[in-house]
């Protein structure tokens, strides 16, 4: 019953979010602010995580393909395809749900409990639209770029780590990451990133927008938002993989 109530209220909120803005100029200003706050500020984290994961995957692939019958190009290929298909999209979205999602819930939730949202409503502003729409557009817009960055730095991580620890030469690695390349994998993941971006912005916004109580409830709402967003990301990953890849 609670699930149906929340799903219904989520779609009701979305209906308000996509209403006509009061003043486009103010929304655009807010959009740029959100791109900076939610997107640009996440670039550092994405780069660090991707470099490490790329490096770790290269070592692990090298370890599991130690058999001399396997061509060494498989190490680069495995790293590349894992990054392209799953890590730089799904796993990155899960990580971003933690960073961006909790940020969105706590920001909107704090505005709710300190009556800033009531204040917007009394001014005659559609608070759901003004606060949430720029966040959704910003996250949906930046997610594909974060994906591309993640793939690039993940591959770079493998390139630096593999030869450094001596599991593969630089030449073999570069050959591997170009071997049997399927461009559709990138298209598929970018499509996924649009969906994940929407979930990462809208689900935490929902939990923040309807929070009741004080600081403690805002904290609890942030946790709920991250958990629910993660579950939905995995569910959508399964659905989209089934629909677009098999």
């Amino acid at each position, binding site marked *: 019953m609670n699930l149906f109530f929340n799903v219904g209220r989520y779609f009701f909120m979305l209906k308000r979010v996509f209403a006509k803005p*009061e*003043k486009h100029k103010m929304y655009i200003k807010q959009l740029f602010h959100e791109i900076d706050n939610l997107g640009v500020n996440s670039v550092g984290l994405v780069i660090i995580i991707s470099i490490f994961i790329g490096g770790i995957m290269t070592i692990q692939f090298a370890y599991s393909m130690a058999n001399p019958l396997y061509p060494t190009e498989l190490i680069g290929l495995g790293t590349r395809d894992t990054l392209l298909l799953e890590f730089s999209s799904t796993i990155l979205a899960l990580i971003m749900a933690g960073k961006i999602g909790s940020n969105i819930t706590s920001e909107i939730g704090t505005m709710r409990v300190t*009556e800033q949202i*009531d204040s917007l*409503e009394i*001014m*005659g*502003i559609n608070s759901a639209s003004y606060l949430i729409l720029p966040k959704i557009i910003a996250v949906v817009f930046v997610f594909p770029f974060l994906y591309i960055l993640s793939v690039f730095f993940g591959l770079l991580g493998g390139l630096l780590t593999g030869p450094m620890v001596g599991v593969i030469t630089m030449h073999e690695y570069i050959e591997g990451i170009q071997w049997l390349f399927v461009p559709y994998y990138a298209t598929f993941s970018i499509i996924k990133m649009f969906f994940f971006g929407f979930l990462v912005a809208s689900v935490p916004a929902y939990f923040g927008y309807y929070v009741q109580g004080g600081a403690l409830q805002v904290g609890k709402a942030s946790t709920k938002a991250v958990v629910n967003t993660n579950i939905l990301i995995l569910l959508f990953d399964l659905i989209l993989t089934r629909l677009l890849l098999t």
Partner: protein
Amino acid sequence: MIEVKKIHKSFDGSEVLKGITTRFEKGKTNLIIGRSGSGKTVLLKSILGLYEIDNGEIWYDDRNFCNLKEKDRKKLRQEIGMVFQGGALFDSISVEENVRFPLDMFTSMTNVEKQKRVDFCLDHVNIEKKAFKLNPSEISGGMQKRVAIARAISLNPKYLFCDEPNSGLDPETATVIDKLIQSLTREFQMTTIINTHDMNSVIEIGESILFISKGEKEWIGSKDEVLDSKNKKLNDFIFANKLYAQMREEK
């Protein structure tokens, strides 16, 4: 003028407002007083449309708020200024930007005109220029309330609502805020409704006082009548403070 007629509001089967009928006059400071939990805030939020009432009518001059479409409600809300208990200033932007926000959103003024209006509003509530660029968290509670008042009057509202505007303030600052609201009400001829349980405000600026108890209208009068009232519930509320009991004896 704002008029409410027989308004009822319940939450989960528990009736909080039980058919309150009253009128709030233009150019006067209209106070709603009562114990905590008496329904003051629910009444205020119902008049503002933050809560949908179950029954009754709310009139803003000749407009029945309950019958207005969402689009018309939005228009009406641009004529309303609100000062929240905690100020409710947007903490991600500066003092100046807070006051400019309604102007950016609803007017087609030039930047110079907006700046003039912001300066005018902040000057009216005695905020020094050096505080304009600070964030709300960097100024005192009293200043936050004054900035909230400046923001509330920035669009020249016809109706001003204040929810416990001097809670958490020292008596001197509270008096300053009360006097400020009263002088702005007179100067701009607004219909001002103040929700309070501060007896100092009642005695200082209570031009019209509505006392509610358990969701019902219990007494209505002015600051000159409040100390001489024969209403037992009102007397219990006021004279719980010994200072006012002493004042009545002296009177």
